[in-house]
């Protein structure tokens, strides 16, 4: 999680507005981008897993803010962590659910026995048009996960996953445009809520689980209100989602959003606890997952917790924010 923050108060000061969908959002430094964020979390994942990085056979980066329009981000990450050259890499794009798409691919590769280890990253340096509602929340951050066959060394195992996708154009950015555009209130009910509810109910129905069978739940968090509302709609409590609800402090990290929420949850979870996670990507779709933690979780989560990255921060004013985001013409 980058250390700089832009508060809603500062955005309001700039534009004479009074919005507060989050308290503040994370902002990259001058030399940070989606690749540097991906590399940082990938390195931490490798260190915690305690595995030989050359055995990682796949590195997939889910993002909508690639530094290069043409040239993979995954190759840079794979090189940086020492996974090259015997590795498959690709960049995934499905708005805010590109990270969980990468996860599902890794699950398939490992589950089929094609790879011993596969890494999925969700990371973004999201763009918000100045004065647009998304300027409050479009944030920077990411998380990396390494998938392997279930063993005594794995921190959690996957019980099931389910995807729910329709062609719903609620948010998009066409080639060569600087900022995404969105359909205002259309991004709510027929987009975010419909797809998260659809994926959640689909997975619960297939597995026979009920909301009370889970210790924790993580829903894509574009602002503070939406995940709380969708949790209540589905019958989950605020207590179940609170540990993973970090959006108020760091904003919406887009493809990083639900993976980061899962990381915050794993930081506090005990062994043998079931977690429900659902992403949402505009366009639109949701990937739902059921994970159960294992004993190895406690020993593998040494080092800084997500909360320490959230607390390690420096607030910037609006002009500095623009400079960091490369939005001042020189």
């Amino acid at each position, binding site marked *: 999680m980058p250390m700089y923050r832009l508060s809603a108060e500062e955005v309001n000061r700039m534009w004479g*507005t*009074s919005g507060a969908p989050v308290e503040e959002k994370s902002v990259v430094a001058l030399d940070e981008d989606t690749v540097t964020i991906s590399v940082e979390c990938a390195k931490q994942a490798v260190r915690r897993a305690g595995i030989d990085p050359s055995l990682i056979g796949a590195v997939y980066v889910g993002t909508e803010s690639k530094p290069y329009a043409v040239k993979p981000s995954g190759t840079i990450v794979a090189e940086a962590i020492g996974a090259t050259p015997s590795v498959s890499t690709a960049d995934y794009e499905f708005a805010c659910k590109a990270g969980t798409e990468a996860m599902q691919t890794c699950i398939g590769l490992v589950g089929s026995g094609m790879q011993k280890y596969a890494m999925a990253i969700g990371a973004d340096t999201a763009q918000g048009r100045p004065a647009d509602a998304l300027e409050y929340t479009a944030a920077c951050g990411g998380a990396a996960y390494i998938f392997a066959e279930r063993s005594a060394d794995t921190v959690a195992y996957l019980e099931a996953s389910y995807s729910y996708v329709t062609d719903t154009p609620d948010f998009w950015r066409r080639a060569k445009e600087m900022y995404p555009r969105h*359909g*205002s*209130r*259309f991004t709510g*009910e*027929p987009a975010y809520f419909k797809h998260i509810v659809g994926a959640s109910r689909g997975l619960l129905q297939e597995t026979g689980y009920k909301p009370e069978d889970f210790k924790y739940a993580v829903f894509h968090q574009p602002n503070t209100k939406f995940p709380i509302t969708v949790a209540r709609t589905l019958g989950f409590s605020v207590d179940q989602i609170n540990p993973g609800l970090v959006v108020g402090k760091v904003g919406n990290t887009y493809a990083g959003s639900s993976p980061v929420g899962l990381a915050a949850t794993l930081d506090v979870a005990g062994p043998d606890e079931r977690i429900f996670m659902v992403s949402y990507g505009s366009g639109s779709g949701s990937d739902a997952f059921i994970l159960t933690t294992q004993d190895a979780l406690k020993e593998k989560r040494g080092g800084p917790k997500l909360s320490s990255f959230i607390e390690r921060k420096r607030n910037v004013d609006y002009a500095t924010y623009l400079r960091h985001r490369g939005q001042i013409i020189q």
Partner: protein
Amino acid sequence: MRRVAVAGLGIVPVKEYWDRSAQDLFAEAAVKAMKDAGTDNVDSVYVANMSGALMQDQVNLGALAAGALGRPGLPSIRVEAGTASGGVAFHEAVKAVASGYSNCVLVGGVEKMSDVLPEYVNTALAMSEEQEYTAYTGVTKAGLSAMLHRLYLDLYAEPAEVGMMAVKGHDHAVGCKHAQYPFRMSIERAMDSPMEADPIHMMECSGVGDGAAALMLVPAGESGIEVAGSAVATDCCSLAARKDPLAFEAVRRAAERAYGMAGVKAGDIDLAEVHDDYTIDGVLSLESLGFAKQGEAAKLVAGNGTDKEGKIPVNTFGGLKARGHPLGATGLYQVAEVALQLRGAAGDHQVPGARVGLAQCMGGVASVAAVNILRRFGA
């Protein structure tokens, strides 16, 4: 002229229908109205709609509406008079039956606002102003009403008194199944909400919603609800050209004509549905309709005079603010609500003993107004 009666009504709840078309909503309201009337023997159709051309790129709604009913072939006419479209369409439908040209008219209004971004709604509303003199400046409908609001505050009332128009609407909407915002709202919440166009707060404005309402009109018999008066009037579009901008002359003229037809005075009206797209417009409408003297309507509202038990119950299902304001359909929601009251079918919203009710809507900043008065037969 023949006397005209309301034979049936159909109301679609106002909300955001993301996966339904304007034709779908119109057909739902129309079928409900036909079922309510116990007949589908319609011989002509009127469709009120304001902004289909902008919001759906769709004109020729008359033919489409007849098609949506499965009745292509019927004479079917779209009526547009800004946000007064619904009341004006009702007036035209009344004339069709009164003249003897039609024996069973379906008049429905529909608006599908959720298909466009909010800025297009502002554009659509501004299109009721004259482009060459007013709209080209970029002023919004809220901006124009804000000028009246400011003048009214300078001369007559406190901000919270005008704001009570919205609070009372929300009070009345509680429990209303077709209302978009059926919950209470405090005056503090209204006054603390951001400015939409100073001094109009966001919570003093009607919202964006989709909806459709329809009525069936037939020659009057010896029972039911009759149309006692129906009139449309206009005023010059430019606020600057009006002698007194706080007097809605179009509303006053339409009311005068409708009262005359019905043989009643403002004091005889048991309930009124008025056009409160912004609180100030509702307040000024009450004055122009004769329910309060100029400068006194805000105090009437704040003093509970428009409550269900008050001197003149107003916006008994929430009005534009809380029931919702689907532009061209609004006027027909109002008439349908008045009919429900006169039938004694208004449930918790019922004004006891309601015999005569009035519906008033307007387009632009009251450059066109429709006033329709319904009466319980024999009352």
